[in-house]
């Protein structure tokens, strides 16, 4: 039965990966536009499509797969309601893909994104009620607590777009508007993505019979959950220069960093479970993803310092920062989880795809930071975007193997033996 669960998750992951590929195509188109403007293309619309597909198409769908795969028992996992929800969500994604690049925020695209939000809310309630049934009368494992918090933060973040309409019509695109946009981003990144992924890693350790009811994990959860609301004050800094916000932002980001350190120390202690023994690179991917997360938290602290406020407005830095979280932490940790769970294979070509993605990611981050000193930087960024694309295509193509029974290497092996036998025969004939 385990493989059956895997095969359903594998199909869903394939759909999520398709979204990732499409969003990478949009990103590449944006990079091409900077290199050589394309006539008749509205860059802002492309940005909207790119970001919607990234948040709702790739990360949400991948987390949907992982969370249901890891937390639901078989009878609930195969429940029809999850299948319907998944396809409704994907329909909304395709709707957004075909409306945002051409119309931007217009009735149809907003309708599709609202559909996605509603499905996400329904998913949250069904999922939480399933978890409640499962853990009635028991102590909730730490991983489930993390995921519940993640879902709550996701709900909070979804309030922001609904508030946008009234706010824009009343005040126009003022500070309040940017505050709402920032709070959406904040609760998605630091709330939903981070908590869900940390919960998934803890869950993974629980399935390996490790006691996660550890003081470090508890402290990590409390500190991170406490800090997330005050940490929002960092987005007010660039608009309101009251000293109080500085202290609040600094305090919150330090608490956040502390909480993360507790968790990372625990993970480091159990690192042998997060990696394969024979394929060391799988473990290195997790290491890279957590380093990116740590770097993001450190940057959060630095960003709260008075000297850095001006940098927050610098667009290139913001783009680099967002992609640091998005690709560096979220995407790589999702891949790590999918590989360790056996939903994606860990073959050589998967390694190739990961390596290409990693090289492209690191190079484009460095280039975004040093862009003003490099000639042809737009061309180079376009080339690197293409490299992301090759990497994602490679990962996408490598994924089908899991539909087969476990020993998918058999044909290859037998061929090697055949070749050797033939070579041997030939030499003997001579």
């Amino acid at each position, binding site marked *: 039965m385990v493989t059956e669960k895997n095969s359903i998750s594998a199909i869903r992951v394939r759909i999520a990966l398709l979204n990732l590929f499409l969003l990478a195509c949009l990103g590449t188109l944006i990079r091409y536009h900077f290199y*050589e403007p394309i006539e008749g293309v509205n860059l802002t619309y492309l940005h909207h499509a790119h970001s919607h597909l990234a948040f709702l198409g790739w990360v949400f769908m991948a987390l949907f797969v992982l969370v249901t795969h890891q937390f639901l028992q078989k009878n609930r996992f195969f429940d029809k309601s999850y299948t319907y929800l998944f396809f409704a969500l994907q329909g909304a994604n395709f709707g957004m893909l075909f409306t945002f690049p051409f119309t931007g925020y217009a009735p149809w695209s907003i309708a599709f994104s609202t559909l996605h939000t509603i499905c996400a809310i329904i998913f949250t309630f069904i999922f939480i009620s399933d978890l409640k049934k499962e853990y009635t009368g028991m102590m909730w494992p730490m991983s489930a607590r993390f995921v519940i918090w993640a879902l709550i933060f996701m709900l909070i973040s979804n309030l922001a777009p609904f508030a946008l309409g009234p706010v824009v019509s009343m005040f126009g695109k003022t500070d309040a508007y940017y505050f709402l946009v920032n709070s959406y981003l904040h609760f998605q990144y630091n709330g939903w993505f981070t908590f869900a992924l940390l919960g998934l890693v803890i869950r993974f350790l629980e399935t390996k019979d490790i006691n996660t009811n550890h003081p470090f994990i508890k402290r990590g959860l409390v500190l991170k959950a406490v800090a997330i609301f005050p940490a929002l004050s960092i987005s007010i800094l660039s608009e309101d220069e009251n000293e109080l916000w500085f202290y609040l932002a600094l305090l919150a980001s330090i608490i956040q960093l502390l909480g993360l350190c507790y968790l990372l120390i625990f993970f480091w202690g159990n690192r042998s479970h997060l990696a394969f023994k024979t394929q060391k690179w799988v473990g290195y991917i997790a290491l890279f993803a957590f380093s990116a997360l740590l770097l993001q938290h450190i940057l959060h602290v630095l960003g709260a310092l008075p000297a850095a406020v001006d940098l927050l407005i610098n667009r290139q830095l913001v783009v680099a920062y967002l992609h640091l979280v998005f690709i560096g932490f979220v995407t790589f940790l999702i891949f790590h989880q999918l590989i360790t769970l056996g939903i994606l294979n860990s073959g*050589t*070509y998967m390694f190739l795809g990961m390596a*290409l993605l990693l090289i492209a990611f690191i190079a484009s981050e460095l280039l975004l930071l040093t862009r003003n000193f490099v000639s042809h930087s737009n061309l180079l960024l*376009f*080339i690197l975007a293409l490299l992301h694309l090759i990497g994602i*295509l490679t990962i996408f193509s490598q994924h089908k193997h899991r539909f087969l029974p476990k020993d998918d290497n058999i044909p290859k092996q037998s061929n090697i033996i055949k*070749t*050797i036998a*033939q070579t041997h025969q030939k030499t003997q004939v001579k």
Partner: protein
Amino acid sequence: MIKILKYSFSDLMRSKWSYIYLAFYLILGFVLLFLNNDISKAIITLMNLIVVLTPLIGTIFGIMYFYNSREFTELLLAQPVSRSKIFFGQYLGIALSLSLSLVIGLGVPFLVYGLFQSAEIFNFIMLLVSGAFLTFIFVALSVLIGLYNSNKIKGFGYAILMWLFLAVIYDGALLIAMVMFRDYPLDNLALAASFFNPIDLSRIMILLKLDISALLGYTGALFQQFFGTGTGVVVSMIILLLWVIFPLVMMLQKSKSKDF
């Protein structure tokens, strides 16, 4: 040797990766032609892409395949087949399949777009030739690195560093040196320096053929001045050929003495 070549070639063809690489170039070619609507402009954009991408793909793929097929290589080594045949066969298998993907993947969109009717056909062939050269060179270099380093991570690191050095750092360092020592006559030195970077060299070769002096850059202009356009193309091609042969000879030498 043909047998081994056949094996690694068919292994790569079966692995789907060649098709991905092919599909990537197909999409890229069609999209670029669609966006530019002009063959010569698309060729220039493609040139910029190819001189960076093909070396990287060749490097990473070459070293990955080398490490991955090590067990198979060890099995082969136990057979009465000469070492140079084994490694040469594997090398040709990788380089041929990668170049084939490149040539077909870019060739089809341009043929559909009416390449034969345009005057750009030789420029386009030049582009494919230099892409294939770069693939052969960088696969050879990466297999060489693989032979010298048994440690996978070290080998991978060196291979990527090599690409980074030749694709990005070399140009920058050369430019800085030119600015710093501008009071001295450095023309011949710069000319010689361009010989030592296959990426630079192939860029110059294509641009000489395209005859766009504005894009030639410093070393390219020197090249044109020194050799003239026609000879320049021939000379650069010969040096690129040397760039293939030299690592290849080193590779075969090393494979003979390496202790597996």
